């Protein structure tokens, strides 16, 4: 199996889907000749032509709006929005149309749109380049929200998302773009909507997605040295949420810490906490803790590491659930 970065794995997934299904389209800002600012679409225009891989004007609402129309015409659009923060100009098209068109047309039109969104922080980016809007999308009925944590998942989930008949907001963790691992380039055929226990543990369960999965694995390793056994659950899909795996994992330890980069208030950790409240109350030995970004706009690059949940902050929360 080749050693690939997440960028390369995503590129391979796009190549696979473009080759497998000739109505797949890739478009967005700078995805053509440049191959995307992160090179995720590198070489695709050359290989599949300007008809199927093309640059658009600088207009995110336009990108999502034409994706809706292309889907109605029977295409399978895979648009890219260049950065998380630039998905905001497209929010209306996402909330008002992409999410609702199947319903509005009473099922006449599928919306097999996979919106790729380089997301989250940690790369020292300028303003608007490090946002974590997952809870907005998760709150929008009609959208699915998928976010891989490593190269292999990135490949599998992107293929699954593109095959899916529903709109998927596919949030790629930029800070993990360059991490390499061996990747099997055979589509696993997994449906989206399954969480994954990436590390088993008996004292408490860390729940995370995207970039924070890696952070939680670091925490689990650190804790292990102190004789504390932490499980790590990678949700992978926020909608649909694999509630069964979540409840089982947490019920086993009775203690959970949920971690994300987004600000705390009304972030998706609140949803996870509420689900545990409702579905695992009886087995909870301590209140579920959240470790999140602060309730501030994502700060400038020089201080972002004081914003993103650190190993120490997560360990403190672990301590809290263990000591309760």
């Amino acid at each position, binding site marked *: 199996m080749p050693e690939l970065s997440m960028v390369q794995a995503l590129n391979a997934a796009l190549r696979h889907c473009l080759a497998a299904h000739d109505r797949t389209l890739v478009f967005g800002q700078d995805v053509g000749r440049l191959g995307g600012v992160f090179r995720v679409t590198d070489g695709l225009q050359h290989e599949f032509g300007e008809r199927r891989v093309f640059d*658009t004007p600088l207009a995110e*609402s336009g990108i999502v709006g034409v*994706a809706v*129309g292309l889907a*109605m*015409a*029977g295409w399978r659009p895979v648009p890219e929005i260049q950065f998380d923060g630039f998905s905001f100009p497209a929010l209306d098209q996402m909330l008002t149309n992409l999410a609702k068109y199947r319903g509005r*047309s009473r*099922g006449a039109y*599928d919306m097999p749109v996979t919106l790729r969104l380089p997301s989250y922080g940690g790369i020292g980016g300028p303003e608007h380049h490090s946002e974590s809007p997952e809870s907005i999308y998760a709150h929008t009925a009609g959208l699915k929200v998928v976010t891989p944590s490593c190269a292999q998942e990135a490949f599998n989930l992107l293929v699954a998302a593109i095959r899916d008949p529903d709109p998927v907001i596919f949030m790629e963790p930029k800070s993990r773009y360059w991490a390499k691992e061996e990747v099997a380039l055979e589509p696993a055929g997994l449906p989206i909507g399954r969480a994954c226990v990436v590390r088993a543990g008996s004292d408490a369960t860390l729940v995370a997605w995207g970039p924070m999965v890696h952070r939680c694995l670091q925490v689990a390793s650190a804790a292990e040295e102190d004789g504390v056994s932490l499980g790590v659950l990678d949700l992978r899909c926020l909608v649909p949420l694999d509630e069964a795996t979540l409840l089982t994992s947490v019920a086993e330890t009775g203690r959970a810490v949920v971690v994300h980069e987004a600000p705390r208030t009304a972030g998706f950790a609140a949803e996870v906490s509420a689900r545990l409240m409702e579905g695992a109350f009886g087995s909870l030995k301590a209140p579920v803790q959240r470790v999140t970004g602060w309730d501030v706009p994502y700060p400038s690059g020089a201080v972002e590491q004081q914003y993103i949940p650190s190993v120490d902050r997560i360990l403190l929360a672990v301590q809290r659930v263990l000591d309760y």
Partner: protein
Amino acid sequence: MDADRLRETYRLMLLARRYDEEAVRLQRQGELVAFPPMSGQEAAQVASVLALSPADMVFPSYRELGVAVGRGVDMTGYMLAFRGAWNGGLYDCRRNRFAPMASSVGSHLLHAVGWAMGARLDGRDEVAIVYFGEGATSEGDASEAFNFAGVFRAPVVFFCQNNGWAISVPAERQSAGEIWRRGEAFGFPGVRVDGGDAEAVFAATSAAAERARRGEGPTLIEALTHRFGPHSTADDDTRYRERAEVETARRNDPLGRLRARLAASGVPDSWFSDAEDEARLAVSELRASLAAAENPPAVEMFDFVYAAPPPALALQRSQLEELLGPDA
């Protein structure tokens, strides 16, 4: 337009007018929740859509009753939207190539452009037409749609009905520019037509559709029209516009203009009264079929959210089912 087509246009305009009046009555009687009448805009709506072929795709806003009639859309399914039975309408959008009604102003122009881009990618010579008001042109999405259409030479006809008002805001406060000139600004032709003149509308739309079919890209048509009624049955337009304006508009009723044109060309009175009878019959059929039509059951709100409901959603559906009991 040949004589047959002109008569057909009149017939459909009349039908649209009578449906429109009936819808206002139905609303007053509590059969509809609210309705945005289009009386006064029949020539713009009917003549433009008749200039297209059945394979072309129509993207309407909420005030396109005349377009729907021209397209042969099932009126019961259309009107049920205004009874709150289903957002977007209950007609078969695929069969008539008539998209669900868009009530978020301006957002559907991009869908038409995307659809047209798709038709072009497929090498099909189909055209999209999208209907919107002059108010809609102020939304950023409208300009993004113009720009995408220009760049991708999308086979799309932008059909703007400038009826002078966006609810209470007059067109001259909506923009300091002239709407038809937006076309040029984005690299394609814009034209202004008298939206009360069915023949002019038909000619402009045919030309635009032909151009699109030839692969030469979009056209923006600004049709100057008037709405005789309020913005919707919930609106009180006496608060913001002079009655004189409405009276002048009614004196230039596009229906009356076309009737005069037809009469001058020798169409006999009996033909007009037949058309009137036909419309009256259609309206009473609509009334009856609406009275008989049932709204979809509440649980259908779950059924088209995703292609297949995720487990949590299926559970919510069964919770509602249980709450509503066996009769639901």
